[in-house]
């Protein structure tokens, strides 16, 4: 496969992943929710303390 065709195939694959997954994104799902996800996932966010033996 030539370099150009390889690049086109790689790009098509990446765009295909977006096409497959983005269809059911809700209007509330903005990029800024990534930072919120990090904050919410932090161990002191009131969920589970590391090593605390939380319910399995």
């Amino acid at each position, binding site marked *: 496969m030539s370099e150009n065709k390889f690049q086109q195939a790689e790009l098509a694959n990446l*765009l295909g992943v*977006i096409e497959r997954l*983005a269809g059911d994104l809700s209007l509330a799902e903005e*990029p800024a929710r*990534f930072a919120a*996800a990090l*904050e919410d996932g932090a161990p002191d966010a009131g969920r589970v303390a590391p090593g605390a033996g*939380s319910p399995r």
Partner: protein
Amino acid sequence: MPDFPSLAAVAASIRQGTVSPVEVARHHLDRVARLDVRLRAFITVDAERALAAARRLEDEAGRGRWRGALHGVPVAFKDLCFIRGLPTSCGTRTAEYFTADQDCTAATRLLAAGAVCLGKLNMTELAMGALGDNPHHGHARNPWAVEHCTGGSSSGSGVAVAAGLALGAIGTDTGGSIRLPAAACGITGLKPTYGRVSRAGAMPLSWSNDHLGPMARTALDCALMLRAMAGPDPLDATAGSHPVTDYVAALEAPVRGLRVGVPQNFFFQGLDAEMEAGVRGAVATLAAVGAHVAEIRLPDPQVLNDITGLISRSESSALHARVLRERPQELDAFTRARLELGLGVPAYDYLQALRLRARLARAFTREVWSEVDVLAVPVIPEPAPPLRAALEGPLEERIARQGRFSRLTRPFNGLGLPALSLPCGFSAAGLPLAFQLVGRPFDEATVLRLGHAYQRATDWHTREPDLG
């Protein structure tokens, strides 16, 4: 002075007065002069200013004034950290490729804690590339086998620490660029949580995926460096205000009961047999020191790789469009091809990828961190391959090869999670094996603590390459 001391040991010796900052700086500069012609870890050696700084620190220590925990410790910075008075090539042919209004915040914080800057370190061009080659400054050489790859993009950072040329280094990690060279060179490297360490004053490759972090011999060394580097920064809006833990003090907490997840899917598929044995051996050691090990199924990491890759390609092309447009002939064919790919990503797809990333990060928190505290996974799919074999073949093969080498690290850039690479053995050919511990967001303390416990139970991190 031993050739391969840890950063922590040297810092303690300086504090006790058994060795001086000038002696330590001279020792390392002598090693650089003797060994770096062959290893190519440095792009710029700043010997004169390093010795001047060491003399100042020695004088201050004599008067009982200590700047911080790194007083007199020689370190070096990846050549994309802007430091006034030194060129910042970013691995390109252009000596002054990147400038900033202010010195790199992470580097400045290490120097404020007493570290001595020996110079700027080799890297792959524009921090692209997973294997560590550089056609402009010479390929960095793996201290364990100089004909083998170092891993990249922070190739010089991996080599400098592994070869005992510096006690610590700053690396950056957009798809694995701290952990890949740490793994290939047999040292310890931490990609912190996204936003844990300021990116200000460091060349951006992908603002959504870029992380700065410490590379050193041990988890304790990384904890010492991270404690100095971490925290909010008015110069970087993405540097989070999440409280900075005392990562060094936290190392002493027990690890008994920590839940370690070993993925059933993706991470062990197609893995080299020696690497798999090394990683599974490391997991057995974690169990032996008191962790509860359990298998877990992760949300598809390949989707994370694809989305992270699309975002990185898109942002890096926007950031580095000028060199691509005006001086494409200066770029290596690999770099040029990667930047050209990003130009083809429609805005619609880039924005959807950012939205999906947020969704996947939330799903990962919900599904994984409710079950385990830490993940243990391989870093590289095989020991560092021969450099010649890595560079041969048509461009599309080179691109595919680099993608395969970073497939186990990229998911955690997209998720922004802290990931610590630790040495866990050697192949029959004498090349380092490695695994990574991945933790909750902003929970560097736990991955460092478990890594420290692992290194107390093993001695892989103390092995020394034969450099003649």
